[in-house]
């Protein structure tokens, strides 16, 4: 049986629902020699500002139980160098290309988006309003619904490309932020970025990361990310990309069933660059086992128990 894995997200036709998450796949080119990038539904670039950024001092990463805490701080080449040097090399691969857009100010987000609007080969823009590892922008925008609206609105006006804000999990009610993005004209949502965490070296009594706090990713956060994806997907009409701790086909399916149209894979890229092939095989096997022909048939099929059932008594 031939099963269909292609999905459509905000007009972007992805050959499958697996996208490499921002900051965990470099600019894509790093993996060129290790795998066929054409296997992927899409790639999200590292976060890009107008200018090159040094990022934070080291140590920048530390392991946690089933997780990774990072404070890279958006080291990057800047949007112009990306367009000039990286993009031409990437466009030869048959996969969707999203760029993760950053800014210290609303204007900077708009400006970066404007530059990318004209760049050949860019499929869509992911708006990073949720990085916990920078002092301006980032989470400061994504933690305030009004600022969220403003950033998305400004980017919306700066580009005709699909606009995909990336939500922060460090909020009380993610549906408020999901709706603010939808109202500002977003085409889809990425859900979620990292959880703000702190790991302390008890010998030196200092944070293990030079930056202090960091963003928690990996399998540890998956249950929280699935829950937020489920909440966001029910709150808006635009498609949602699920992100957080995905490493297997089972994990992918949790997010799709919760309502995500596609998913992004982050930390697991560091652990096993060979995972895409395995996950695709396992997704196909799942569909066949369940007599399904199209991955879209599982999206949003979670049977959430009704109130009566959640209180079922003997």
């Amino acid at each position: 049986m031939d099963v269909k894995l292609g999905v459509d997200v905000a007009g972007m036709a992805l050959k499958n629902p697996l996208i490499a998450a921002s900051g965990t796949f470099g600019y894509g080119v790093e993996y060129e020699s290790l795998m066929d990038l054409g296997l992927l539904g899409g790639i999200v670039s590292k976060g890009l500002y107008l200018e090159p950024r040094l990022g934070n001092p080291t140590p920048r990463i530390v392991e946690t139980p089933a997780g990774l805490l990072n404070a890279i701080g958006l080291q990057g080449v800047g949007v112009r160098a990306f367009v000039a040097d990286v993009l031409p090399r990437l466009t030869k691969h048959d996969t969707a290309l999203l760029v993760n857009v950053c800014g210290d100010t609303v204007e900077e987000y708009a400006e970066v988006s404007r530059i990318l609007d004209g760049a050949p080969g860019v499929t869509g823009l992911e708006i990073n309003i949720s990085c916990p590892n920078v002092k301006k922008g980032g989470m400061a925008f994504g933690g305030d619904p009004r600022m969220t609206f403003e950033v998305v609105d400004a980017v919306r006006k700066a580009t005709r490309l699909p606009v995909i804000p990336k939500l922060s999990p460090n909020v009380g009610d993610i549906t408020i932020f999901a709706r603010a993005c939808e109202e500002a004209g977003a085409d889809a949502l990425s859900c979620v970025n990292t959880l703000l965490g702190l790991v302390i070296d008890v010998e030196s009594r200092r944070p293990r990361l030079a930056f202090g706090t960091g963003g928690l990713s990996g399998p540890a956060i998956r249950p929280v990310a699935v829950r937020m994806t489920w909440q966001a997907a029910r709150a808006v009409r635009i498609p949602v990309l699920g992100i957080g701790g995905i490493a297997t086909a089972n994990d992918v399916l949790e997010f799709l069933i919760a309502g995500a149209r596609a998913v992004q894979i982050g930390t697991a890229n560091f652990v096993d660059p060979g995972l895409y092939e395995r996950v695709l095989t396992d997704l196909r096997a799942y569909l066949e086992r369940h007599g399904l022909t199209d991955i879209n048939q599982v999206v949003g099929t979670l049977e959430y128990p009704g109130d009566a059932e959640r209180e079922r008594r003997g």
Partner: protein
Amino acid sequence: MARNRDIPLVRREALDGAYVLLTFRHPEIAHEARAGQFVMIKAGISAEPPLRRPFSIMSVAPEREEFTLFLKAIGQGTRRLAAMDVGDLAQCLGPLGQPFVAPPEGSEALMVAGGYGIAPFLMLSRQLQASGGAGRVFYGGRSAGDVQLRSPFEHLGATLVVATEDGSLGVTGRVTAPLEAYLDAAAPKAVLYACGPDAMLHAVASLAERRGLPCQVSLDPWMGCGIGTCLGCVVWIQKPGEARPKYRCACTEGPVFDSRHVVWT
């Protein structure tokens, strides 16, 4: 070219203390690896610890498609690797990183190692032997238990000078002392190679600087991915002609760097 594979452990030799020699089958590594390159490896596909770990390639046997690691079990990742049984699978990516650059014709190779930092020098010594002498190895550790990889160098015909801080084997004190003594006595035309704890690397680099000798150091930062994407392993490097240092990935532009380019912090 680096290749990601699930590979079986084919041999396991426990040494004293926490050291162990692990031999795996991996064709690309066995055929292509150069001294100073490393692998990112993890025992099995368990969730803990989350990431792979970097280890220098100690030796290769291309005819058997095997390579060997020399490792010290100090934490979760290394303990899991050390506890593998023959036949168990590891996830392994390699060969990675920039190798040591061979010394120019007529220069002596002086290798300075601390603890598990000895691993890449066995391979370097073999490469050197193929084109002349196997080099001179200064091998230091806290005590005798930390300088266990000796006989393979002796078999190769490399000159081995051991130093232990507690004097339990070889010269008493830091390994830089016999190195300095040798430079004083022989005043050789030499290239220094260093791999070991940061303090030792820095000491060797200063010494090289003072004597005007070229020196390559293999750095040992935390690594998340080994292929330049996590940006966790960056170190400050300033190359000639650059106005300011830059963060460079130790995994792709290193781990071996010209010591004069390293901004020691």
